[in-house]
């Protein structure tokens, strides 16, 4: 496929969306006290990653005295700098949330140095001491929620074969696949996860084909890590398989087959950030957390989840919520090529930076990263 042409087209569409947005009146209201800007890389109603952020933005809109401006489909190029500039200069935004991974360096870092009095909060980036002090990066350890999904999937599957439709073999995705598998194996040692990479974040036809191929192999519970899980969920359900959701709650698409899901909880985090700012507290520049910190959450269990699976999943969740926390990736971990990737005796806790460089699939995953 001619990706060069597609991305250029998307760029133009982004420009068109901007013009339409401006015409429709996404303009400053001078009466508002604080204006917060949200920037999304895709459509904010994608039923996935961007929608989760938009739900967080919607939670801020409910707080009196706050005004939220949003722009979607902003590419990860200097286009995002122009968007930030216009949100600052035209809308008077003082707090900005560029929510896509590629916005961070150099674009947001550059803007943060240019406007040192304003606050920038980026999702997914790795803030270091060299970056401006008014910039911050936050992210959620959603692999904890995937681990719990894995527990439910491992106990629900009849064939003990689980499927994972993934976009690209990058650390965040591999971490989710591995955590899902480890969760399943913790309750069902026979469980395996077969993974298929589609090659990009939004490829509906490939995602549907991957879903069908997995089910042809006998997989009966599927989950995914792509931008919009709707295609996987609908096609799996048509074939009679069960699903675990991702990004947001997709249970409305398949009330009977939706087991649970790993969701972002930005609508809890963003108001927390605002509270910290109004109270005069500093938001830590490097902000991370999982279930305990309420940055990620688990969808309510569906009707197909047995009492046994509910109990096991609740226990796993309780371990994450306990004071000591729970390390998904523990020593004596072997990858699916037989190599020991974490030596016995070492626990890699959720915040361990080594995990953000993950390049392996654990034992029990069928598939390869390249």
């Amino acid at each position, binding site marked *: 496929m001619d990706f060069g042409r597609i991305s250029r087209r998307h760029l*133009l569409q982004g420009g068109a*969306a901007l013009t339409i947005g401006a015409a429709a009146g996404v303009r400053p209201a001078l009466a508002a006290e604080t204006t917060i800007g949200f920037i999304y890389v*895709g459509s904010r109603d994608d039923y996935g990653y961007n929608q989760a952020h938009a739900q967080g933005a919607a939670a801020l809109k409910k707080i009196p005295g706050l005004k939220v401006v949003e722009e979607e489909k902003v590419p990860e190029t200097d286009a995002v700098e122009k968007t930030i500039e216009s949100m600052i200069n035209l809308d008077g935004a003082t707090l900005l949330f560029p929510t896509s991974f590629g916005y961070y360096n150099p674009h947001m870092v550059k803007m943060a140095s240019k406007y040192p009095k304003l606050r920038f909060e980026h999702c997914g980036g790795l803030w270091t001491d060299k970056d401006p002090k008014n910039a911050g990066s936050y992210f959620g350890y959603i692999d904890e929620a995937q681990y719990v999904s894995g527990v439910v999937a491992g106990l629900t599957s009849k*064939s003990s074969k689980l499927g994972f439709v993934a976009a690209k073999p990058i650390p965040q995705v591999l971490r989710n696949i591995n955590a899902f598998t480890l969760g399943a194996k913790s309750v069902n040692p026979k469980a395996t996860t077969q993974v298929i990479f589609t090659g990009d974040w939004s490829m509906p036809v*490939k995602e549907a*084909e991957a879903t*069908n191929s997995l089910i042809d192999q006998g997989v009966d519970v599927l989950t995914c890590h792509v*931008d919009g899980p709707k*295609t996987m969920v609908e096609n799996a359900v048509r074939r009679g398989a069960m699903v675990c959701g991702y990004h947001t709650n997709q249970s409305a698409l398949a009330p009977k087959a939706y087991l649970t899901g790993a969701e972002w909880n930005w609508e809890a985090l963003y108001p927390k950030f605002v509270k910290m700012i109004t109270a005069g507290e500093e938001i830590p520049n490097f902000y991370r957390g999982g279930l305990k910190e309420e940055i990620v959450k688990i969808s309510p269990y569906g009707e197909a989840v047995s009492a046994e699976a509910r109990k096991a999943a609740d226990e796993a969740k309780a371990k994450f919520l306990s004071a000591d926390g729970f390390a998904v990736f523990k020593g004596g971990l072997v990858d699916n090529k037989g190599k020991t990737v974490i030596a016995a005796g070492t626990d890699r806790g959720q915040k361990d930076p080594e995990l953000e460089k993950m390049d392996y699939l654990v034992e029990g995953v069928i598939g390869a990263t390249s």
Partner: protein
Amino acid sequence: MADASIGLWTVPLAVLGGAIRVSTPFLFVSLGECITERSGRINLGLEGTLVMGAMSAYGISYLSGSPWLGVFAAGITGALLGALHAGICSLPRVNDVAVGIALMLFGTGLAFYLGKPLIEPTAPRLPAIDFGWWSDIPQVRAALRVNVLFLIGVALAPILYWAFRTTRWGLLIRTAGESADAARAMGHSVLLIRLRATMAGGFLAGIGGSFLSLFYPGSWNEGLSSGQGITAVALVIFARWDPLLCLWASLAFGGAAALGPALQSVGVTSGYHLFNAAPYILTLAIMIITCSPKRTLTGAPAELSITR
């Protein structure tokens, strides 16, 4: 489905299933473009038409509860976009390729804008016909769940082939495509013939779009087409403007789209990007083998702006 694994048989079965499931939009767009190009005009805007068709089909199906009404609405939307293309191109000194690109951007942009509220709701889908009833293997049954649109598309290819050769309309379209002067000398309006041919092409491309959103993958989102319309336009050249070859080329591209995921599912995991690129490598190879500096492409309508 406890003991349902069928091992390596997954691959040929998935390619067969993929050929049936994935090929339909390619088939409709390429047959539509075949009609348009045979009349001497290229409509590159069919990517936009496909996406608009997908969006309007989903929207109408959701609002009315009838997927067939959605298919019809998609066809009408496509025909209107075709009329827009033909209308602009009938002005003097307008380049049809440039208009096509403009309409491609217009169609996708408009569909994304109007389609915003349609991403979450679930619209009624088109039914499937179960051709796998004779088999006990669930994988075979799943692969042979065929949609009526696919059958219509398959039937349409020989009908068009026959119509181009023997019917009055077919001959008129070909005359306009081979020599506009000859058509004019016979007293026919070339612009009117091309308007009708472009509208017919748009109608079919719109229906191709409705298959995407109402059958497979079966929901509306903005990545739905990811370039299938453009690929289908290229298929027409690949298929030498022959409707029957369009059918085979569409089936091959559909099957190839299933190859990458199917190979990964049986454990062939290295080089999946290469397998995903298989249809395009095939196209390039055939283009290189069959091209010649001494003559234009065989079968190309003489009036086409790319061959003139």
